[in-house]
């Protein structure tokens, strides 16, 4: 690991200003991806701007049909939140299944969403729960947010403030973990908004994506049986040591059915 300057930002504006001034600086949220990357020599930022002291970025609150979660809220806080468990139990359960206890106590919602790791859990929630990503300068709808592998609609130096999830009638998340890393090889979040259903997949492609055929079928009848036999296309899905695109496509169907069962359970 190379030397770098550590700074603790006191406000969002402060952090944005520093990032603007220093092109090679990187914001530090939970550090669950950035720090290992630096240790392996794959990233060498000039400065780390620690966001953890910015109180505005933390916390969970209900706002009408939305649950608003601050970007620096730790996974363990989401998992344990009475607010989240009451409104969107699937989101609490998803957060409770991220990484291990140490990761959940350090990793943050904003860090995960901004990174758009193709195998992270939260992108499925953001996309499936029709969320808005609130940044220091604008609001980005989930459908416009994830652009590709580690690529999002965020501009350089743009920081996520919070994510607001739309509360569904019911939702479920089912994950098939990569046997080695335990990241999602396929994770499917299914959310029923009464008449319209969103199905968001993580792990299988370059970034989180929705599956319209499954959404349409579930919109007509919200049951696992309704999507039995619907083939998900393998084109553009990931192939690696742990599974072919065909396997992932198959697992999208299996996990979608299990997510529906969890939502109904």
């Amino acid at each position, binding site marked *: 690991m190379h030397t770098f300057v550590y700074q603790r930002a006191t406000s969002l504006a402060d952090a944005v200003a520093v990032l603007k001034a220093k092109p090679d600086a990187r914001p530090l949220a939970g550090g669950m991806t950035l720090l290992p990357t630096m240790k392996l020599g794959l990233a060498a930022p000039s400065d780390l701007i620690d966001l953890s002291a910015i109180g505005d970025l933390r916390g969970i609150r209900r706002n009408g049909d939305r649950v608003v979660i601050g970007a620096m809220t730790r996974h363990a806080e989401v998992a344990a939140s009475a607010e989240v468990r009451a409104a969107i139990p699937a989101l609490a359960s998803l957060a409770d299944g991220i990484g291990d206890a140490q990761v959940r106590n350090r990793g943050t919602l904003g860090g995960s969403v901004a990174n758009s790791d193709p195998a992270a859990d939260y992108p499925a929630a953001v996309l499936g729960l029709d969320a808005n990503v609130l940044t220091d300068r604008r609001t980005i709808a989930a459908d416009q947010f994830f652009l590709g592998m580690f690529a999002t609609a965020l501009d350089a130096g743009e920081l996520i403030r919070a994510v607001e999830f739309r509360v569904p009638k019911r939702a479920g998340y089912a994950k098939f973990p990569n046997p*080695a890393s335990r990241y999602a090889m396929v994770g499917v979040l299914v959310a029923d908004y009464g008449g319209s259903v969103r199905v968001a997949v993580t792990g299988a492609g370059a970034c989180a994506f929705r599956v319209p055929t499954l959404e349409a079928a579930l919109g007509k009848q919200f049951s696992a049986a309704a999507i039995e036999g619907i083939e998900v296309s393998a084109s553009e899905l990931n192939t690696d040591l742990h*599974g072919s695109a065909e396997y992932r496509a198959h697992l999208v169907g299996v996990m979608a059915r299990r997510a529906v069962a969890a939502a109904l359970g």
Partner: protein
Amino acid sequence: MVEVKSNGLIGQAVKRTEDLRFITGRGQYTDDMSRRQMVYAAMVRSPLAHARIRSVDTSAARAAPGVIAVYTGADMAADKIGGLPCGWAVKNKDGSAQAEPAHPAMQVERVRHVGDHVAVVIAETQAEARAAAELVNVDYEELPVVVDARAALAPGAPQVHAEAPNNLCFDWELGDASAVAAAFSKAAHIVKLDLRNNRLIPNAMEPRSCIGDFDSSTSENTLITASQNPHVIRLLLAAFVFGIPEHKFRVVAPDVGGGFGSKIYPYPEDVIVLWVARKIGRPVKWTATRSEAFLSDAQGRDHYSHVELALDKDANFLGLKVDTIANLGGYLSTFAPAVPTYLYGTLLAGCYRTPAIYVNVKGVFTHTAPVDAYRGAGRPEATFVVERIVEQAARQLKIDPAELRRRNFIPTDGFPYQTPVALTYDTGNYHATLASGLKLADYAGFAARKAEAAKRGKLRGIGISTYIEACGIAPSAVAGALGARAGLFEAATIRVNPTGSVTVLTGSHSHGQGHETTFAQVVADMLGIPMESVEIVHGDTGKIPFGMGTYGSRSLAVGGAAIVNATRKVIDKGRRIAAHLLEASAEDIEFTGGRYVVKGTDRAKAFGEVAFTAYVPHNFPHETEEPGLEESAFYDPKNFTYPAGCHVCELEIDPDTGVVEIVKFSASDDFGRIVNPMIVEGQVHGGLVQGIGQALLENCVYDESGQLLTGSYLDYCMPRADDVPSFQVMTECTPCTHNALGVKGCGEAGAIGSPPAVINAILDALSGLGVTDVPMPATPHVVWSAIRAAKGRQVA
């Protein structure tokens, strides 16, 4: 026969005395140690699997902060430092010698695997050394690469060493080919399989680490290194690499956090740190990052085999024929030639009375990390071949696999049994372990459980493996005749201190096995003293007279036997001293409960009194005895030991995802006599987890360009606690006939027996779907693909 009876401690599940320091973080591993003025080494490794080194520019690295020196392979060659020696020479079929290319610690002209050593940077801190290592600019000319052993044998394949045409290190055989041909010609059934034994990365919890030091005032060389056998390291480095005398060379292997074979060998880093320490006059430390461990620890397994079993009409085995291609990696590691030959071919008889066996093994160089012994070393590969083909025969002939095994077992009254592949099994009872293993597994009740699982949509299967292994390595004369360039005895010294406490110096090395407890139990039991009065000292050539180290499940069977013999000498000398004190004849004195007693009387001397007399010899038999009470023994085993057992795996497969869940794993093992059943159980558990890891999870994969794709835990799947069930284990006992303790060894059995049990169970579960083979590791994707392919065949 068991000559050393238990007086209470042998056989007890005594808690491990070493654990207090380990679980409180007070173990002293190599990386915990510092020396005055110590500096740090960082290796410059090849990023390419095969390349010519055009030039190495070290100027930027030399100018970097904290850097003391940068050395290259050329510097090492100029100092005439020898390459790493190979400790075993096997012969080709035609009697000629194996190809044995040099293995310099740092390369001068050519690199042969990713991670191969090109240069070393020495700096004041570890961070400075690592940062500067990135500044060494090596100009490589990329050359074609071969990573797969079969591909390496193909005409026109890229060549790894000029000394090994067609990448062939050896073309070895064992057994009687014409007897096997005759057996096959009269066979009623011939069963065939093509098998892959997947390549593994050892992943000891403690990465390798070493410190080199040289005292110019005394000419003493010191190497502290995470090793399983410090004396072997000293012998090889002193004699073949540095040419320095052993009395000026101390090798210390302190607390070592797991080895599994990977810490048997001297590595380039051991050579480099000591060489540099001698050059710069300061101690040099190197500790592997986990990424370096993935790239540079000797790896395991990696076989392709074609197997054929001939049976008569009654399903008696007539002959076994095996062709194996073994990947040796880019260089010959210390015991690499022995692993796929004498530790593999000799075990192909398994537990069976197969009368004719022939095996041919081609050892092949590739552009990958060196391959050597890894927990089980050859024996897991042999067991996989035998136990897969036996199960395949049972399936093909529609015989219960347990019954087929029983029919072909070496009968319990058939020992000693000479196999057709060189070994003589001294004792065993395979029917007993099979019977108790099946009972433990409730084999009889399996059909009901399968039916119940089917209702839940799960495919349930059961699989058996009745393995045997050869441990207690090894009778030196036998090993020497088979190509070993070292003896394989063990040494021990029992030093009785004046006040009656005992220091045991053993050449065995504990890196997780619990020797400090087990060995102390044996000595305390024999001497009738409390365990707290016995200290086990190991891992330091400066303290221990000699030793061959720990591998091949040899420590108790060989090292323990040496300890027993030295302890007996102590008891005998004590008896003569006691006879003098008690004014009796030595023959009339028996040693019991820690006391020398004149038979039939109440006249006695405690062991402590005798010890004190030996060191304060005022009233002492000076005419016949020397003062002091310290005895040594070297023990060379008469034969290997032959642990054997029955592993039964029961599992469920989710056909939707291919996920395999082991619901029950039962093991009935015969390790001969057991000194500490808790430690044995722990060894079995650990071995089973590694074996299940090989069967279901672990796989070392290089891409075609020789890059390691599984270079971290993101892709190399280590078993976790939730990957395995709570094990059901038990033991049977046929004592080893040729060591005083009657022990056989237990360290590798779990990893040897379990993989075929797992795969056999998977194939049982999937047999209804027409799946006939599933490769290791049987990951969810692999299992799902096998199911899908079988369904496709059925549709077509």
